């Protein structure tokens, strides 16, 4: 019901944002699906509830307190209530489903119709969505859904005082937009980037990307392999990449723990790979279905020794789409592992986005052609010393040359060489790549005025809540802005200094306990925070919660 309503509201022209709360079990437990709509851009959840469709007692017990002047739709024939509340409005969902649709499975559609009724909108858009999603199930099912949606809608119009509640008017017609979750966007980005090989072991909240790519693997010519464990997954991706396939893995923190060994292998063999790392609260199994940004420093430091890597952290689905593609290009240009860090909040929430533009994506392979090999590389050296540290990459199977990779320290040809002289040169060669890469990393985004007194600082998925917080603060008369990081490592220190030069107070806002970005900014750019707002209860920030924390800390 949640996604059907979301899509209907999108099609009516609203900006829609939806997010789910669920526990780690297949059925039962308390689950919610929240939808927020607006006539302007939206990328965060609010805290007040206007319409609550309560399908059980727990929903009422837990969320009645969040209602201000709203309506609780509840079927009192099904849900027993021991309290009364002004906002409770009985709708006989089950009875309508059975009487009009002939089956209790239509209860959800009745409720969706009722919700549209309360919003004082027309049913057209809901009808359109129902028709398209049930197309495969046949006309009878479509008709039943349309009938029961109308019956739910009519019930509201006839029984709710004054016929409906919210008097929402349709936004002005605009170009059509997408409704998409971060995971789907990342999967789309990988396909657009020409991913050829994906190996993974399922783990929430990354599985959506694996599923998405797998569901289009045939059409796009991708080989998807479910590995026996994450150790195999990343080792496979490296084997595929070494032989020339654009390769990636998807995982969450726990799975990444097992990949750490192979991460180092990618480092020393200079094998490109994209690691899609969707975070959830740890340590160990933690809170499997909730959200956190607790793995940044882990990704940065994972594996023994030192080697270059790159960390990107998209904040919205469109950034997931474009950055995924960038990740492949960086991985192949620099022959390093590249992380794309997401989290459960970004992975599973539905965002309204401008249409993605696949033509903006380029596929840059940085491979030597057979021709180049014949003319320029008589004695091919996979790890040739070059001024920038990037060696020419050929593939095994190309005629007349051999490609050798070794996890031991090796010479330019890939043969073991344990001499000190070689070690120093190889380390320098590999690490050198970071210098050039740092210049390619884009500066943090500034949202709001460029010379605000109060600067909120965040990274990745907190973009939406932080941007909205800046709007709220600005409206209240504060001088505030957001400096937001998507390109995390290597840090372009100079442009970061520039972005933060004018701000008097710097408050880092992160979904973790220790303030990991704040630490990184200190060590990499020498920038100190004035204070931090940290949330680690498994839930994402809401703008209201950030404003409240700022008040509590006396910042505003």
């Amino acid at each position, binding site marked *: 019901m949640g996604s059907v309503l979301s899509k209907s509201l999108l099609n009516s022209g609203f900006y829609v944002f939806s997010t789910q709360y669920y526990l780690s079990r297949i059925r039962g437990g308390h689950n919610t699906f929240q939808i927020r709509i607006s006539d302007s851009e939206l990328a965060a959840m609010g805290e007040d509830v206007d319409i609550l469709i309560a399908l059980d007692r727990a929903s009422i017990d837990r969320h009645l307190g969040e209602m201000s002047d709203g309506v609780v739709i509840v079927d009192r024939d099904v849900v027993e209530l021991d309290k009364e509340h002004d906002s409770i409005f009985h709708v006989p969902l089950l009875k309508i489903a059975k009487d009009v649709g002939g089956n209790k499975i239509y209860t959800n559609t009745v409720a969706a119709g009722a919700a549209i009724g309360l919003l004082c909108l027309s049913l057209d858009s809901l009808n359109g969505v129902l028709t398209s999603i049930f197309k495969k199930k046949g006309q009878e099912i479509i008709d039943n859904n349309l009938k029961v949606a109308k019956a739910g809608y009519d019930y509201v119009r006839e029984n709710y005082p004054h016929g409906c509640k919210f008097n929402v008017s349709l936004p002005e017609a605009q170009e059509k937009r997408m409704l998409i979750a971060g995971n789907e966007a990342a999967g789309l980005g990988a*396909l657009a*980037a020409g991913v050829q090989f994906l190996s993974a072991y399922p783990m929430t909240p990354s599985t959506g990307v694996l599923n998405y790519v797998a569901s289009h693997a045939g059409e796009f010519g991708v*080989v998807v392999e479910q590995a026996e464990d994450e150790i195999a997954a990343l080792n496979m991706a490296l084997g595929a*990449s070494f032989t*020339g396939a*654009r390769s990636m893995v998807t995982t969450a923190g726990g799975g990444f723990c097992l990949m750490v060994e192979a991460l180092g292998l990618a480092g020393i063999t200079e094998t490109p790979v994209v690691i899609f790392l969707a975070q959830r609260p740890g340590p160990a199994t933690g809170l499997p279905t909730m959200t956190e940004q607790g793995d940044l420093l882990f990704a940065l430091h994972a594996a023994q020794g030192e080697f270059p890597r790159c960390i990107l952290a998209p904040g919205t689905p469109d950034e997931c789409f474009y950055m995924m593609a960038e990740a492949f290009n960086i991985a192949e240009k620099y022959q390093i592992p590249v992380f794309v860090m997401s989290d459960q909040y970004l992975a599973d929430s539905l965002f309204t986005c401008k*249409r993605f533009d696949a033509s903006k994506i380029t596929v840059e392979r940085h491979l030597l052609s057979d021709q180049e090999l014949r003319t320029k590389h008589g004695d091919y050296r996979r790890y040739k010393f070059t001024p920038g540290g990037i060696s020419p990459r050929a593939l*095994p199977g190309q005629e007349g040359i051999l490609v*050798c990779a*070794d996890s031991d320290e090796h010479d330019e040809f890939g043969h073991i060489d344990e001499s000190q002289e070689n070690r120093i040169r190889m380390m320098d060669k590999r690490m050198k790549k970071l210098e050039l890469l740092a210049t390619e990393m884009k500066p943090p985004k500034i949202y709001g005025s460029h010379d605000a007194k109060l600067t909120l600082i965040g990274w990745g998925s907190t973009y939406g809540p932080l941007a909205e917080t800046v709007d709220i603060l600005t409206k209240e008369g504060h001088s505030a802005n957001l400096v937001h990081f998507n390109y995390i490592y290597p840090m372009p220190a100079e442009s970061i200094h520039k972005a933060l030069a004018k701000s008097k107070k710097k408050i880092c806002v992160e979904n973790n306990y220790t303030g990991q970005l704040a630490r990184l900014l200190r060590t990499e750019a020498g920038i100190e925070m004035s204070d931090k707002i940290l949330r680690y209860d498994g839930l994402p920030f809401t703008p209201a919660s950030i404003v409240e924390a700022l008040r509590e800390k006396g910042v505003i």
Partner: protein
Amino acid sequence: MASVEDYGDYETAWCPGCGDFNILKALKAALANLGKSPSEVLMVSGIGQAGKLPQYLNCNFFNGLHGRTLPPATAAKLSNHELTVLAVAGDGDCYGEGGNHLIHAIRRNPDITILVHDNQIYGLTKGQASPTSERGMVSKIQREGVFNNPLNPIALAISQECSFVSRGYAGDVQHLTELLIKAIRHRGLSLVEVLQPCVTFNKLNTFKWYSNRVYKMEDGEYPLDDRVKAFERSLEWGDRIPLGIFYVNERPVLEDNHEVLKEAPLIRHKPQTEKVNGLIDGFM
């Protein structure tokens, strides 16, 4: 045509008299006999004295992590199935650290050849028990003698319907060469388990010990697809140790299961970026 010389002659870090030398010799002879040129061959290995073998062979190689020989080898084959992919491992590497990968590689059945140098000991780390060490073998760690039962890799592979299961002996280069030729030719996962005396650390299973016990199975003793007969044979270990092919099973091969690999190797497919527009429409 390829020759043994094409596969080079390198200085090694192996102990004088090590069984590994003969395995290298047999491998070169097999590859030359099959007419494979070095650039067509990819050796994937883990870590250990056995895992160093690709360093001493003129061909493409990916020398990865201890125990992790099979996942990259499998994926390398998937991404360019025109390569002849061989995975080289020690018994610690393939049966200890990488045991799980072996089981799953057998299930997947990629067309690669696994060559296990089984010296019943950890060589590179100087003499600890391996999964195939005899019960009672004393080491610096197993001071009272090994308690664990030795793994029977041949029986394990047959029980899991591995596509090609064989055993060679580093003391018989000619026989090992023939086995390797058949194993590499076989389409599907081929296991070549090689009895390889470690002259430095394994004082129990010496050349003499093996030579007194090994015997070659005759061709046609039983139909090679008879799993029960093969299994029975795999249990033979003691005064007499059989060498040769135990079991052959023409199972569907992993690469054949991917429609996209039918036209050309994965790495030669062009990205289908424009098709993404259709998917994007679905989110509107």
